[in-house]
């Protein structure tokens, strides 16, 4: 079977997963076994800090929350691509293609920067004055951009489109 | 090399006319529109005549390839036109009759809105019809085939403000699509088996095959599918239902498309494909049976109709049945002969009927006509000729073609002949009934003159086109009372001229096929002979003997010419007798004793008083033949089968589709979760199938 070697090449990965799982499991188990528990209401809540987890789940959040979260993920993921590039760059240099490798990354970063510039100019990074009320957010937007945009969605659209690229 | 005839110009000319009128006609005056339409259609006719004049110098079939249409994977189709004896005959009929009807329409449609649109469509129809006739391959023929359907749809729906017209147009189109689907699949089968759609190459490929006498092979399949297509286009059982409704169109349209040309396309296609049909005897038999049944069935329905155009519509269906009968007994040239004479006399009948309707201010109900012969003598005389022609009375054109069909049918089977003769009697009966009711006796419409138009509006579904079309023209021409009925008047000369020309043709048109038994030599048959002779199957069948391959008076009956001719004469006598009997009965019932049919149909009491009467023999005839016939025709055949079974089947399947459609719509809840569930269900099915495949393959 040709795929035996192939499967075997993934063996280290499997061992890695097993070890990681075992370690995490052991830590949780240990703290559960030897930990000293004194529950209070606040302590039993899923998060001890941040927003209150109790109440109407349909509470409205400013779209800004999502916006920032999404933008963070996008740029975060884009930054991750720098790591494999960094590893290959040495090989490329050895092959005499270091300049090519470097220029490729500049192109890449250039594209990321276009997106960054876009969201910046569109005002997606402007947090504004108030964050709780959508109306207030809209008012801030209106005053800032000369009263032309009535809804906050353009940023969402633009950024997600960028993500597609 | 034969000269380049530029055949492509013939269809292109009317297309140019259609384009000019369609694009700019709105700004033209009526005179200009008419001039453009007539000029381009006339040019096509002139070219057809020119080609006919040069015909003897051509090497046949004369094919002109214009361009490669498509070529892929060893399969190619060209834009190419061809002319041979068969297409020449069709070409002359289509362009000639078409031109006459164009002329007629100039007068008939004068007061109508959308004048330019009408002529644009009419020219467009000519383009497609001429393409159909001149095409040298099945695909180009199919283009014309679909195109005439489209043009017919547009013209039936011309008076589009009435729902019935729009519905009729749609019905025609969709019923035709059912036929087209058979045609299309036949084309695919041809590509599969012969790798070409070119007539010549297909026929060359077919020729080596011997007739599929035992079992059903692919030739039979192709032939049957072609016949399905032909049945749709030529209104044969079971796809004839659209034609009576198509009478919603303006009368010239009925004359051109639904009588003289388009509906005969199916006959032409079957004749064109005779090489295939001759090798599929069972398909030929189907053609003959369908033709015979349609001829008889439609004729019986024609008896009970009171709308003048509906009578003619059913009569068209019936006559088309004759043509298919001829093709079905492998007498293709006779079928084409009848197609030609039918184009003359049926075109004439419709145009004359249009003239009648025009004269009485839009009335189409024959019960409200009568005595018109004094008022509109030209129309009367031309219509008389046409009626005698269709009834098969010598020496009018219809006699020769119908008689020939019956004779050939007899050679195939006496049943065909018997049904054919009965149909001939019925044809003659309902046509003379129409003739007597319209032109003789007293005018019965006058009483309603004062409120005529309201009346029409009230039951406008079938008398509509008339009331819209003719009344304004009438008042303009007649210059009399605006309400139309005021004066019954003759149509203008521009409408009468085509009538007269067609009347002449309805008389002399049949003489080219003067049969051997009557001392002629059937030049028509000999002319078409080469087209059909080359096709004789390698292994002879009975059909080949009865068929076209040998001119009858020379070889088929060569051995015993005297006996054969004597038999033929006897049969001729019988069919003429049937025609005269129809004439006599119609005269008896609708002129001499006009109250009889009503009495008979009304009550038994009527019968008693009739028996006591002097003409008891008449009543006996009536009781024996007419009453059952009328009852059968009116209640069983027309209401029962036509309306009840066939229409209901079509409507029923439409309802079924609608219900199914609603069901499908219920899947569409709008709920994303249920949508996702559907996708998941579908995915599960796909996965299950592939797993099953995976398990099955070792």
């Amino acid at each position, binding site marked *: 079977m040709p795929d035996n070697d192939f499967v075997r090449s993934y063996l280290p990965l499997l061992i890695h997963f097993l070890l990681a799982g075992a370690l995490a499991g052991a830590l949780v188990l240990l703290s559960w076994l030897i930990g000293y528990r004194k529950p209070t209401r606040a302590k039993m809540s899923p998060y001890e800090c941040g927003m209150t987890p109790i109440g109407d789940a349909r509470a409205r959040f400013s779209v800004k929350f999502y916006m920032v979260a999404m933008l963070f993920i996008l740029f975060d993921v884009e930054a991750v691509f720098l790591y494999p590039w960094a590893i290959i760059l040495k090989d490329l240099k050895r092959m005499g293609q270091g300049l090519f490798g470097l220029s490729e990354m500049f192109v890449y970063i250039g594209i990321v920067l276009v*997106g960054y510039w876009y969201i910046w100019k569109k005002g997606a990074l402007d947090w504004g004055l108030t964050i709780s009320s959508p109306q207030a957010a809209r008012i801030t937007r209106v005053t800032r951009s000369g009263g032309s945009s009535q809804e906050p969605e*353009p940023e969402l659209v633009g950024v997600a489109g960028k993500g597609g690229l | 090399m034969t000269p380049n005839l530029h055949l492509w110009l013939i269809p292109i000319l009317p297309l140019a006319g259609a384009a000019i009128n369609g694009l700019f006609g709105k700004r033209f005056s009526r005179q200009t529109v008419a001039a453009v339409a007539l000029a381009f259609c006339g040019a096509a006719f002139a070219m057809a005549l020119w080609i006919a004049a040069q015909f003897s110098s051509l090497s046949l079939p004369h094919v002109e390839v214009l361009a490669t249409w498509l070529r892929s994977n060893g399969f190619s189709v060209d834009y190419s036109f061809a002319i041979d004896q068969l297409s020449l005959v069709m070409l002359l009929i289509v362009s000639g009759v078409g031109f006459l009807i164009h002329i007629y329409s100039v007068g008939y449609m004068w007061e109508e809105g959308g004048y330019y649109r009408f002529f644009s469509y009419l020219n467009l129809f000519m383009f497609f019809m001429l393409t159909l006739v001149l095409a040298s391959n099945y695909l180009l023929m199919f283009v014309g085939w679909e*195109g005439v359907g489209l043009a017919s749809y547009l013209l039936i729906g011309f008076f589009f403000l009435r729902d019935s017209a729009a519905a009729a147009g*749609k019905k025609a*189109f969709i019923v035709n699509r059912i036929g087209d689907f058979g045609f299309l699949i036949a084309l695919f089968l041809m590509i599969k088996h012969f790798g070409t759609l070119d007539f010549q190459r297909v026929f060359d490929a077919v020729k080596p095959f011997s007739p599929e006498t035992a079992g059903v092979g692919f030739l039979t399949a192709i032939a049957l599918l072609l016949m399905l297509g032909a049945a749709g286009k030529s209104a044969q059982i079971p796809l004839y239902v659209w034609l009576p409704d198509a009478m919603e169109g303006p009368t010239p349209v009925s004359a051109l498309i639904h009588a003289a040309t388009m509906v005969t396309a199916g006959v032409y296609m079957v004749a064109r494909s005779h090489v295939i049909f001759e090798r599929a005897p069972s398909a030929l038999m189907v053609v003959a049976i369908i033709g015979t049944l349609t001829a008889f069935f439609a004729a019986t329905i024609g008896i009970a109709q009171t709308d003048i155009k509906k009578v003619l519509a059913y009569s068209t269906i019936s006559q088309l049945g004759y043509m298919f009968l001829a093709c079905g007994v492998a007498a293709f040239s006779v079928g084409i002969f009848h197609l030609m004479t039918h184009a003359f006399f049926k075109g004439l009948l419709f145009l004359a009927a249009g003239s009648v309707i025009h004269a009485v201010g839009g009335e189409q109900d024959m019960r409200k006509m009568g005595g018109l012969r004094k008022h509109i003598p030209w129309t009367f005389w031309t219509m008389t000729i046409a009626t005698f022609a269709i009834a098969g009375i010598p020496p009018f054109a219809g006699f020769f073609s119908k008689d020939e069909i019956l004779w050939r049918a007899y050679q195939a089977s006496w049943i065909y002949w018997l049904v054919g003769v009965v149909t001939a009697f019925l044809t003659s009966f309902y046509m003379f009934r129409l003739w007597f009711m319209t032109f003789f006796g007293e005018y019965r419409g006058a009483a309603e003159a004062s409120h005529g138009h309201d009346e029409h509006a009230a039951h406008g579904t079938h008398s509509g086109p008339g009331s819209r079309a003719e009344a304004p023209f009438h008042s303009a021409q007649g210059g009399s009372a605006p309400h139309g009925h005021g004066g019954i008047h003759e149509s203008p000369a521009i409408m009468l001229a085509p009538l007269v020309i067609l009347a002449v043709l309805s008389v002399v048109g049949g003489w080219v096929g003067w049969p051997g038994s009557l001392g002629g030599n059937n030049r028509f048959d000999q002319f078409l002979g080469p087209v059909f002779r080359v096709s004789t199957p390698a292994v002879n069948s009975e059909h080949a003997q009865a068929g076209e391959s040998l001119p009858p008076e020379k070889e088929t009956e060569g051995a015993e010419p005297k006996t054969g001719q004597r038999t033929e004469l006897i049969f001729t006598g019988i069919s003429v007798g049937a025609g005269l009997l129809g004439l006599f009965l119609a005269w008896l019932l609708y002129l001499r004793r006009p109250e009889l049919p009503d009495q008979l149909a009304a009550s038994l009491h009527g019968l008693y008083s009739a028996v006591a009467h002097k003409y008891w023999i008449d009543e006996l005839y009536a009781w024996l033949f007419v009453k059952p016939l009328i009852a059968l025709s009116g209640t069983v055949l027309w209401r029962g089968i036509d309306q009840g079974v066939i229409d209901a089947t079509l409507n029923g399947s439409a309802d079924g589709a609608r219900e199914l459609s609603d069901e499908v719509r219920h899947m*569409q809840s709008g709920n994303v979760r249920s949508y996702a569930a559907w996708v998941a269900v579908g995915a599960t099915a796909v996965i299950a199938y592939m797993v099953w*495949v995976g398990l099955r393959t070792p």
Partner: protein
Amino acid sequence: MAALQTMQGVPQAGDYIRILPEIVLSIFGMIVMLLDPVLDERRSQRTLGGIALLGAIAALAATLYQAQPRFWGFGFFDTVKLDAFSVFFHFVVIAVTILVILSSYEYMEVQQIRAGEYYGLVLFGTVGMALMSSAVELVLIFIALEISSISTYILAGFRRRSAISSESSVKYFLLGSFATAFFLYGVALMFGATGSTSIARISAALADYAGTGHGPMLAYLGVALMFVGLGFKVAAAPFHIWTPDVYEGAPSPVVGFMSTAPKAAVFAVLLRIIFEAHFSETVWLIWLAAALSMTIGNVAALVQDNIKRLLAYSSIAHAGYLLIAFASLPANGIPAAMFFTASYAAMNVGAFAVIGHFAGHGERYVMLEDYAGLGKRSPVLAAILTVFLLSLIGIPITGGFFAKFYVFSAALQGAHPLMGLVIIGVINSAVAAYYYLRVIVVMYMREPREDAPVAPISAGLGLALGLSLAATLFLGIYPNPVLKYAALSVGLLH
């Protein structure tokens, strides 16, 4: 991943030429993005539309440039392949983009949608679709699929003031993600079964598998899952369910776009996977999907009163006709499918351009009764729409006729005589005539309604309509060149 393992050097100039249209489109897309924030929002749409149009035309020129056979071949470590096949689909996709941009120009103004990113998204979506048609590596195909899908998800919701449009966008997004997940699972399983994501190597590996143990099972599962994902994208039954809702809500030019270009691209992918990787076992699967799509599409369309929904069902049906070609042999099926895609694109983009124009502000007039008397109110537009509808019916001398003609005749020439499927198809196309005719009847045979005004046609829309009309008629009257080009790719693909 696979690319890195097999990396033998750096990309050469030829590699870039092989993705030249995509590069051009991306650059212009970015220019649109860069300019959009600095331009006045109310005026920007004309400028940005113009730039996008320029970009699409440049991309078309790039496609024509790369169409020279000397550039053909694999690129970027065997992840893309330039051949007649991909050039053909590049051309179709980019031509559709040009038509959509032209017709959007007026639409966006009438709808008062001020959004430059609309054009950027159209261009980016086109990048994905173009890439799909040349990608021969499953991961790249997936990425390209996502690029095009995400763009269309957003485009579907562009009538922001209309709830139905947002609904359309969200539905499309949720279900679409669901479907792409299937595709990705399929890719993963295929990778597991064959150790490669390259279509050519998968094909080779599967050939080795013939007659051995469990490998094929994974591969079959992989194919099944990929088929689900791709079937969803082309709106083939039973994965068609999203189509009517999404098409109804999305802006009309966008519907014209997403019913043609992404479909063409996904069909290209399907063609590559099915014909290049020799999955003959899928024949009956495709048979069933084709029959179901045609029947469900046409039957459901019979009762629709909303013209966009009607055309949505028609698009399901057309996916069904097209799938018939997939069930036949490559030599006939591939050119037939390619021709079908091109002619369907021409007529459908045109039809939706007309619908978008008639719809008026806020897409108010999309019901069938709004079309009453259009033949009188706007004879030229009505006539053009009639031609597109006749082409959808499949009347000769229109592209739609030959599209169906080739597909059906291809199916009959295959080794499996797909007679049953062809009969279902032909009956379906007879049924379909009913609802297309209904539109024509309403346009020409009903009294005009006074309250549905028709605006004059703008130059851009006029050009778009003229081009799609010309393409529809050209494909019907002289299909030979297109067909010839499509036939070129058979040998290369198979």
